[in-house]
């Protein structure tokens, strides 16, 4: 058995990483095509406030992150639909608000010896058995939702108005998609870190967009790119002792750069 598989923490990190690597780009393709990439980043920052609240209340920080991210997801979607704020302004409000709440809570919680750094930047050594089960369960929720509503999500992503005319419940599906982003962010947070979750959601998706010849292929390529990046990043992290989240995102960026250079003029577009 290679050394990397001999440690329990590494086995858990790899399993968690495979789930994250599957779920993040799956949601990412829909977000990128709907020009909502920034929602992932916003919800990640709100999740930080949830983590801080969890630490302060001495409960499970990942639970706090999940609650905060989902509440924010509903709020953002409502603001977006009401049209009272410009789309991106709503995101800015939630992003900065999330960070502000987190910073205040962290300062109140001064004295706790919990490594917030691990949440901000991710770490493979911190995936406890409980974290692994939460990541796997939440990941399965996202997979099941995308599998169940695949054709509806495609329809609203390709042409929202056309879907509405067909009687597709567009508003409910938009809310579902935003909630799934919240869940995905929380799933990815532990390993990749809050600051880099949106990278794993967005970068493999844009790589896939350069190569794919249809929508299903886009999803498959995005997941493949993401899994390669996660594994490469984790191996690098283990043997070279560098931060896993950073290594994963750099691997994803490397793939994107290679595809961009090779695909210039030769790709499907």
């Amino acid at each position, binding site marked *: 058995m290679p050394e990397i598989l001999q440690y329990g923490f590494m086995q858990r990190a790899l399993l968690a990483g495979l789930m994250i690597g599957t779920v993040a780009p799956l949601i990412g393709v829909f977000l990128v*095509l709907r020009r909502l990439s920034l929602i992932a980043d916003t919800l990640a920052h709100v999740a930080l406030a949830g983590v801080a609240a969890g630490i302060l209340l001495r409960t499970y920080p990942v639970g706090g992150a999940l609650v905060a991210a989902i509440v924010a997801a509903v709020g953002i979607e409502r603001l977006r639909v009401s049209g009272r704020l410009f789309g991106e302004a709503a995101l800015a409000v939630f992003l900065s608000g999330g960070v502000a709440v987190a910073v205040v809570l962290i300062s109140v919680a001064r004295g706790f010896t919990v490594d917030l750094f691990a949440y901000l930047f991710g770490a493979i050594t911190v995936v406890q058995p409980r974290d692994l089960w939460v990541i796997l369960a939440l990941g399965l929720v996202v997979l099941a939702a995308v599998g*169940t*509503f*695949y*054709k*509806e999500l*495609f*329809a609203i992503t*390709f*042409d929202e*108005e*056309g*879907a*509405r*005319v*067909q*009687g*597709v*419940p567009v508003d409910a599906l938009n809310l579902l998609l935003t909630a799934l982003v919240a869940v995905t962010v929380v799933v990815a947070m532990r390993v990749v870190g809050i600051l880099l979750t949106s990278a794993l959601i967005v970068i493999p998706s844009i790589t*896939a*967009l350069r190569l*794919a*010849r*249809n*929508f*299903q*292929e*886009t999803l498959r390529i995005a997941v493949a790119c993401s899994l390669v990046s996660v594994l490469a990043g984790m191996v690098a992290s283990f043997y070279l002792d560098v931060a896993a989240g950073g290594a994963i995102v750099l691997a994803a960026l490397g793939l994107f750069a290679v595809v961009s250079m090779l695909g210039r003029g030769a790709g*499907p*577009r």
Partner: protein
Amino acid sequence: MRTFETWPTVSTAASAAPLVALAHVCFSYGREQVLHEVNLEIQAGDFLGIIGPNGAGKTTLLRIMLGLARSECGHVRLFGQDIRVFRDWHRVGYVPQKAVAFEARFPASVLEVVLSGRTGLAGLARRFSAADRQAAFDALETVGMVDHRDRLIGRLSAGQQQRVFIARALASRPALLVLDEPTVGVDVEAQEQFYGLLRRLNRERGTTLVLVSHDVGVIAAEVTRLACLNRTLIFHGSPQEAIRTGAIARMYRDDSLLVTHRH
């Protein structure tokens, strides 16, 4: 040429309710009223052209028919049912203005796009069935795009994309097809093909067509009924009558007067 036996035939009996009935419809954006007291009935089998100058409320009227906007007064009925309780949306096909409909780099194949026209009919959270795929294939055949089914939608010409959007609308085998400025950006040859296709749908399948356009000359030659709209309905009848009574000329003349008054 395909046979159209599988198509639902539309009853043209005189007793049948109109497919679309608008009564006292009005709509405003803010304080500006764009539609005022519009009364319009569309009968099964009609090929109705809606023309009018820019800002006449044509697209708004379509959006009200499609349930995308709600009339502020009066009422709207589709297939004899109040639009607020209407659920048979698969009986209505919609071809949007191409330019606003989609992102050219969207990674979807032609078949995926056309199949998405069955989303509502197939039912929430269900996978597409063999019947859905067959209907999409038939629709592609109708518009002559079967051979292009695996190509990326963004790689097609404007005219081909337009045919794909018509196929998407036809995939649910609608009795009523609504088209918004469909020939914008399409070359002359593709336009001729397009009107040929509409003629076949209308005459051979009995599909009721509603077509919004600013292209008055072509429309008047193709349609069986004409509606002239300029915030309110100025004329509704046969195109020959519209020309004879001077309704078209009057509508545009009034509009140009309106514009000069504003300056």
